[in-house]
């Protein structure tokens, strides 16, 4: 990364190449902290800042939650079933509430707060992992297709092919084929986790691959790449040193979008009753389980629904802010 920043030629993608001209105001900061600029620009985007704050909050909530609220999400407490959240007392003094279940409990007396925490851990873990997988595949395919002309046709047609695959039937088939072996090797929860993460990752890298390929195609014709090539830099050095750092910004932006869509896909799968076993809460599954009683207990859909929407929204805002911050042409202004 520091290679990229200290690279004197660093041009903006698509901008005209100004290979040897240093950027006068930024050069001092860049020397001390290459990401300082990015952060300063990012800070000016209010939405992105709020989004980042929320994402950190949700992540901490899910990571530290089990210590702060040590109630098992699967613990049944049939005597205390169907409790309302404590805030119901504000407008309904007769509501059945209990401080031992601040957000209420479901029809079997499982604590909603504990389920939200446990569900968030799974949903976020699926989101992050699937996103990382998608980014890895997408970047690899994109760079290879863009850089090596002879691979371009094959890889891009392959990308088209995967784009055309419907994810739900694919997941059903994969469930059928790989569920038992994965379960035997990794245990039920981890097995399904691997399966779902792989499926989501393996079906959401295509946009990234296309964007990266386009950028690489443009970069390849730049003078600094030409210069590097003229001194005999081989592809294995060229790609990590000159190409990748310059396509980092679209990759990061599509990573944030990918995280959001992975969380949504997992929720959709859980909502459809596929995916994780029923005793393994995720935000989508909480939603699914609560739809029957939506009218009587709106809080049971509201909280997981809010958690999904706000996380996705905040990640989208972060992506928006990052795009601005990582684009040097905007950053200067």
């Amino acid at each position, binding site marked *: 990364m520091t290679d990229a920043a200290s690279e004197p030629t660093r041009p903006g993608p698509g901008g005209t190449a100004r290979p040897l001209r240093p950027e006068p105001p930024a050069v001092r900061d860049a020397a001390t902290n290459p990401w300082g600029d990015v952060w300063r620009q990012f800070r000016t985007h209010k939405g992105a800042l709020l989004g980042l704050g929320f994402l950190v909050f949700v992540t901490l909530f899910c990571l530290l939650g089990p210590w702060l609220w040590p109630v098992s999400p699967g613990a049944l407490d049939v005597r205390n079933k169907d409790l309302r959240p404590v805030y119901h007392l504000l407008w309904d003094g007769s509501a059945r509430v209990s401080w031992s279940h601040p957000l209420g409990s479901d029809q079997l007396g499982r604590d909603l707060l504990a389920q939200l925490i446990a569900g968030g851990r799974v949903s976020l873990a699926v989101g992050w992992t699937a996103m990382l997988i998608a980014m890895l595949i997408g970047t690899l395919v994109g760079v290879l297709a863009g850089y090596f002309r002879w691979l371009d046709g094959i890889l891009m047609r392959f990308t088209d092919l995967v784009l055309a695959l419907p994810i739900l039937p694919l997941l059903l088939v994969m469930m*059928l084929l790989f569920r038992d072996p994965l379960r035997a090797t990794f245990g039920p929860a981890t097995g399904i986790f691997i399966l779902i993460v792989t499926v989501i990752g393996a079906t959401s890298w295509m946009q990234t691959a296309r964007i990266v390929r386009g950028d690489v195609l443009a970069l390849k014709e730049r003078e600094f790449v030409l210069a590097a090539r003229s001194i005999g830099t081989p592809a294995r050095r060229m790609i990590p040193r000159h190409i990748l750092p310059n396509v980092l910004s679209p990759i990061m932006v599509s990573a944030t979008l990918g995280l959001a869509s992975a969380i949504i896909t997992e929720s959709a799968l859980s909502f459809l009753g596929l995916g994780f076993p029923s005793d393994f809460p995720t935000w989508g599954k909480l939603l699914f389980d609560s739809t029957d009683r939506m009218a009587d207990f709106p809080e049971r859909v509201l909280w997981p629904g809010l958690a999904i929407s706000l996380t996705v929204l905040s990640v989208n805002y972060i992506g928006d802010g990052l795009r601005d911050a990582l684009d040097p042409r905007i950053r200067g202004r």
Partner: protein
Amino acid sequence: MRLIPALLGATAALALASGVSAQETRGDSGHLNILYWQAVSILNPYLSGGTKDVEASSLVLEPLARYDQDANLVPWLAAEIPSVENGGVAEDYTSITWKLRDDIVWSDGTPLTAKDVVFTWEYCTADGTGCAQEGKFEGITAVEALDEHTVRITFAQPTYFPWVAFVGAQSPILQKAQFQNCVGAAAATCTEANTRPIGTGPFVVTEFLANDVVSFAANENYRDPNKPHFATVTFKGGGDAAAAARAVLETGEFDYAWNLQLAPDVLQSMQAAGQGQVVSAFGTLVERIEVNLTDPSPSLPEGERSTLAHPHPFLTIPEVREAMSLAIDRQTLVDVGYGEAGRPTCNLVPAPEYYASDDSECATTFDLERAKALLEQAGFTDTDGDGVRENADGVRLSVLFQTSTNAVRQDFQALIKSWWEEIGFEVELRNIDAAVYFGGDAGSPDTIEKFYADVEMYANNFEGTDPTSYLAAYTCDKIPSPETQWQGQNINRVCDPAYEEMLAQFQATGDQEERSRLARAMNEYLTLDNHIVIALVDRGRVSGHANSLGGVVLNTWDSELWNIADWYRIAQ
């Protein structure tokens, strides 16, 4: 008055202004929308054990006799119910002679004859058909046509409840002309016949989309010229119980929805919308956990999993099964899942009274300490402190517990898991889409018959009042296996000569006292004594119909759609 509804066929609701006309002419009630949230995959009950398939085909295919809502036999295609008094049943109970009505024609216009009845028996008992209803023909040595409209069924030994074959929706008559090339291994390949059977019933299939929608139209050749009242029927499948209940009770999009297995509080709040009503009746439907006596481990090669070749490592131990049963609080399950429409039971045969064992002690006992003691006794202790018991050979009490995707069943799973974990089991839950789970597809690993799990939960019942074919399911030859295309009703893989001995005696006894004793003994063998079937809840059947739909008589002893020819639209 008779002309008007006929003219207005499709807009019958208008024509029925007087209300009396509900009894008038064929097709006068227009269109009927039925929603079965498990989609229909085949319209041949001999090739599918799924209730949804059996009930959908009951619109087209009919048996010789049916049970009414009070469990009385009523003649359907037969002219009368044979009995010893009218000479239909032989004095020594070795044969029964059915006389068919002589005015019945198939929907293609050809007459129904005794040959069709004989053929139906040949069809189901042929080698390789994989007939799902073989239990119905248990003990029959011959079915012969005495003349055009008389059939004699001969039994190997005196059969004191001979009204089993060709009785009820599971055992209807197939048309020989249509199915004669579909016998044996060819049965499953006759798609046209299996999806558009020619029947004698009130409706004919006009369009069949597998696992989606079946469209029916009134049968022009139906025996009663004024019925059915509905001109067309859309039989939609798919979705889930909640969506189905909502479609009938809240939004009124559908007229009839079957099997609304929803928590009592949910149904109540839906019914408050005023579009429809919930109907329920107790029958023989029992929600139960089936224990797999064979090893479903995925480490075994395909084709050997869940077969007799590999007995289950710990579920074959009676103490383990008893501990599992003891650790279930059935009353809590009823409260959570069924409310008024359920009662705790340990019996596989909960009704009629004279066949039901006394299960009150088992049904009310919830004793975790005794369960733990039983496991200790069987040699299972938690030696490594991970909360899961294992025995000296290192066999861990780890079970995979599967059921269909349904909110109530998932609640049950969660509750039972927590109890079993308390006594030292490790429980993994799995839920499978109901259409797959009950689909009987030999290619799917997730069907109830294949049973690639240690325990599984579902509900089943028997038609009519006689549990003979139900109890006859637990014999060695009805074990689903690769050889039988994974068909067969002996889900638990019970194979015990002692049980078959009792069954043979049961089938050979006419004395009601003795039959009751044996039926109870067999029920107790499977449930109270051995806990091979862990019964949970005696379920009332719950369905819903629109307030504008008249004539619905919920029948727990036969197809719910048994009297669909009489259904009509109530004038609004």
